[in-house]
């Protein structure tokens, strides 16, 4: 066991897996020599050499497209996109090829790759550094989308993603890269992709969140508990495919549903989750399933970002409305 932050858990997992599997290569802008702008790949080049951990020219389509070729030709690429806001030039490759290669080659080729990228707001960043675009990927068939919220989960989920024979987009909530530490076992373990985690059980209301929002919800839950409201908190962990069963079972028990996400509201992940709840637990509902999300606006620059970011107080406010409904 060792106490680790999220970013340390990533570096540790990459190192452990690269040691075990020499087909793994990791690369991207500033990834090799510098160890990534957030230092997630720090030390990997020194340890494994420039052939397995390297810098690329500044071109996301080049990074993802070459990963496709590498994956077809026997390697296990783990490209890093510097900020998820900059994956759009590479999106052409992700949507046009990464998600389709297995199907369009009738199973002949598959892409065992993990595309890592930091995402999300709350760090007073520049433009294009705060977006939460998980749905852009989740909308693509053939791809899995994973978002961890703790160091322990980061290791287990990243290990599972690396072992997964299909392409996985691994989105890292950068706001909590270094926010706290947790005990992480040294030995290898996996957490199954596609399974949500019940962070805590409760009886009055189900709240689903992921990434940095999980901690915000936890803060709200404390307040709600003091008011006698019992919340069942679920960390979704995987955005695609969604663990319907855990959510439906929970809502059947609590009768109320709130999803909290940083992403934009319209056509956002919350809409999908509410659909699932409606389909699977309609007759159990005591209030309309609700979403608390980012607004349909471009994430504001830092001096306006406080309007956009969801605080625990607002989560508690929405939760109370559902209880009183």
């Amino acid at each position, binding site marked *: 066991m060792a106490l680790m932050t999220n970013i340390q858990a990533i570096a540790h997992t990459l190192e452990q897996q690269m040691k075990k599997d020499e087909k793994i290569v990791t690369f991207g802008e500033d990834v090799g020599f510098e160890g990534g702008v957030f230092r997630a790949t720090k030390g990997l080049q020194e340890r494994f050499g420039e052939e397995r951990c390297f810098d690329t020219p500044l071109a996301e389509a080049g990074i993802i497209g070459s990963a496709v070729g590498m994956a077809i030709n026997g390697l296990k690429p783990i490209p890093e996109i510097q900020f998820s806001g900059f994956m759009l*030039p590479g999106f052409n490759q992700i949507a046009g090829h990464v998600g389709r290669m297995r199907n369009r080659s009738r199973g002949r080729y598959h892409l065992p790759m993990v595309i890592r990228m930091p995402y999300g707001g709350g760090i007073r960043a520049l*433009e294009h550094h705060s977006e939460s675009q998980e749905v852009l990927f989740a909308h693509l068939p053939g791809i899995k989308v994973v978002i961890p919220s703790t160091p322990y989960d980061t290791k287990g989920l990243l290990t599972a993603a690396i072992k997964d024979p299909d392409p996985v987009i691994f989105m890292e909530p950068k706001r909590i890269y270094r926010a706290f530490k947790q005990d992480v076992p040294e030995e290898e373990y996996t957490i199954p992709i596609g399974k949500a985690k019940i962070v805590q059980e409760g009886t009055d209301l189900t709240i689903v969140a992921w990434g940095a929002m999980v901690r915000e919800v936890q803060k709200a839950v404390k307040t709600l508990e003091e008011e006698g409201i019992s919340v069942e908190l679920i960390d979704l962990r995987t955005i695609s495919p969604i663990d319907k069963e855990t959510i439906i079972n929970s809502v059947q028990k609590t009768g109320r549903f709130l999803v909290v996400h940083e992403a934009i509201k319209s056509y956002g992940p919350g809409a999908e989750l509410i659909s699932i709840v409606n389909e699977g637990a309609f007759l159990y509902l005591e209030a309309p399933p609700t979403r608390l999300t980012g*607004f349909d606006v471009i994430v504001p620059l830092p001096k306006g970002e406080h309007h956009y970011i969801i605080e625990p107080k607002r989560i508690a406010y929405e939760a109370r409305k559902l209880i009183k409904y």
Partner: protein
Amino acid sequence: MLTKQFDPLKKKNRMLQILDKEGNIVDEKLVPNIPDDQLVSMYKTMLLGRIADTKALQYQRQGRMLTYAPNKGQEAAQVGSVAATEQSDWLVPAFRELSAWLHKGWTLENVYLYWYGNERGSEFPEDVKILPVSVPIGSQLNHAVGLGMASNIQGKDEVVLAYVGDGGTSHGEFHEALNFSGVFNTPTVIVIQNNQWAISMPTTKQTKSQTLAQKAKAYGIPGIQVDGNDVLAVYAATKEAVKRARNGEGPTLIEAVTYRLGPHTTSDDPTIYRKDEEVEEWSLKDPLTRFQKYLIDKGLWSKEQDENQREEYNDFVNKTFKKVEGSGLVPLEDIFDYHYEEMPSQLKEQYENYKRYLEEEGS
């Protein structure tokens, strides 16, 4: 023609330089014809740019400014190029063009507001044709081409000056823009500020080409490499390119060889990837001291004037920053108002719900 004389594919004379690093003229014949008052105003912008840049970094270190992208050392590449265009021409920036912005007419107050994290910074004066900062690398160049296509189609007399970094030349869109500009013969001048680094990546790892200027050749357009710390060289090359563009002779690619003396941004630690000696070596090629010496030799400027000007700018920059610092947080309406001409109902609803929450819960 400079682009012929300094053909980037010819080994000899590859780079155009007019002022050497001591500030002496290398070749009188090459000196561009710039009126005295314009020379002085170019120097003044470079000086203001330098001071505003240095101070932004200090403010950030004091925890008073947010993330900032320094451009110390790149003043000549920016002012030399923008000064060769007219007020009626377009400026398409990347994100590190402080001196170019100031020379074009984006006010320091607004530039600071922008880096301070306030959208209001991106309000440009009506008569200043400048596009907002483009953070996604390389994506702005196609806009520059489109602006030029529209000028051609509508018979407008406009030139478009666009900037990109050395890292940006790796992007697909850089190549698309060069190709389009050639095919549609647009009045576009693309200036690559080759400041040697793209965060931790040296230019030598960004491309196997010996120069970035030579990439123009593949697209059938003229290209030239210039000493980017020599304001006269940058001006001369850009002036010629602008003239070609105005005459309907199409685009030009200019590689300004310069150096980013500061960190990539205030979140970056350049000591990890570059050597002190390299920084020192480039400090000796400082564009400001070279130009200053040239102006003093010409009798257009003096040490005393310089002292006074610095003092004046120091004051101005301090005052401007204080004002920006006092601007506080952005009002709620500001983050909703500018997405559409008329706010769609679902957005209005989100805005109103949030306001109700603030009223009920207090913020």
